[in-house]
């Protein structure tokens, strides 16, 4: 039974991915176009921050995505460890570079925004620090998953690491509430609904959606690539082992 799963799952996934990939690609383009238009030409400049507030439409979605990708990795890793689902391991592995990129962008846009807002690119406060740790966790994951001769070992070891590192996510999320930081607390994702004007909320949500579809798109492409590479590797091995 399990053996059937093992052989069939990637095939089923490949079919699903073939259907989804173009849709996700187009959705990304469309959502990003509308979102960027609203962000740059429709949304008002802030009464305090002026035009620099527009960094928000990149900064906030990338920050969300950085957290979201890590949680997805944790879920995929747990699935891979518990149910030995081969696609789950690949999902975790392929999410890592995307998440790391989002995390890096969040840090970059945040510190670019910090210069006009706080007068400095960087402060060692809880939100910023925990976000930097998240980047290191991503990089550590990438290093570990590639550090073994046997890819299956890499997948298992790094899955355990993700599950340990996931304690950092709530710390990032709630650091602004638990410690007094320079960074402002949540105004969109919080109890009691968003407290932000719709002209700013809409472009923000559209951009967030665009980044999400982008993530799914890239993930599909990368996982398909991994599955094909695996097949080639196994075929080659089989050929030579006779």
């Amino acid at each position, binding site marked *: 039974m*399990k053996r059937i799963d093992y052989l069939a799952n990637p095939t089923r996934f490949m079919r699903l991915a073939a259907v989804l990939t173009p849709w996700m690609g187009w959705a990304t383009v469309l959502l990003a176009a509308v979102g960027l238009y609203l962000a740059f030409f429709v949304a008002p400049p802030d009464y305090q921050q002026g035009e620099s507030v527009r960094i928000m439409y990149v900064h906030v979605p990338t920050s969300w995505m950085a957290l979201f990708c890590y949680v997805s990795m944790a879920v995929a890793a747990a699935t891979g460890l518990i149910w030995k689902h081969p696609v789950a391991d690949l999902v975790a592995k392929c999410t890592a570079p995307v998440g790391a990129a989002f995390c890096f962008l969040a840090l970059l846009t945040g510190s670019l925004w910090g210069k006009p807002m706080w007068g400095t690119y960087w402060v060692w406060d809880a939100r910023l620090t925990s976000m930097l740790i998240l980047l290191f966790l991503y990089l550590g994951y990438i290093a570990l998953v590639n550090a073994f001769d*046997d890819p299956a070992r890499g997948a298992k070891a790094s899955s355990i690491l993700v599950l340990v590192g996931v304690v950092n996510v709530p710390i990032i999320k709630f650091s602004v509430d638990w410690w007094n930081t320079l960074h402002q607390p949540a105004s969109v994702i919080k109890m009691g609904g968003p407290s932000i004007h719709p002209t700013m909320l809409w472009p923000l949500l559209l951009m967030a959606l665009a980044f999400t579809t982008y993530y799914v798109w890239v993930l599909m492409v990368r996982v398909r690539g991994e599955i094909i590479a*695996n*097949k080639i*590797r*196994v075929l080659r091995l089989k050929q030579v082992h006779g």
Partner: protein
Amino acid sequence: MTQFTGKDLLCVRGGRVVFTGLDFSVGPGGALVLIGPNGSGKSSLLRLMAGLLKPYAGIVAWDGEGIAEDPEAHGGRMHYVGHHDAVKPALSVHENVSFWAGLHGHVGTVDGALETLAISHLSDVPGRFLSAGQKRRVNLARVLAAPSPLWLLDEPTTALDKATITTLERQIAEHRAGGGIVVLSTHGEIPLEGAGVLELAHFQAGSGEIAA
């Protein structure tokens, strides 16, 4: 009667099927010899039996109960001798053996085991001064010191001289006479009376059964 069995085992290593559809069954006093050319999966099967490796499909069971359900119980009734001898260079031969025997709750039987394997004169010698064959004997002494019903031995005669191989054969016979079970792999000849023989080369995967 206690039976040690495996059913429909599929072993995958490095993305490659090593063997598939393998069944075995050994009863009290029984022995199973694993043979097969290099790379046919003898070591892999022994690791499956020990519980170090999980089968991709199929089940290894003791008395009908899967060994994965209670790994500690399986550890308590089993000795595994692999390629490494687990001899600490800084501990004396006696300390080495009695640590492992202690984990299995036996401590008084160490001297007898050393005696049997003719290394009691090395009792106080630190592990780092031992030759390949002497280390192997220390590893086997650990097995003799703490009686357990199931022995899993991966090429146990490696590096042993002829006298010691004879000793080992006698110990295996005694163990079986007491109702114990032995599974071992070998390239040479270990004469075990009434032992089953499992040729691993018969369980290679067909061309279609490559794991993705």
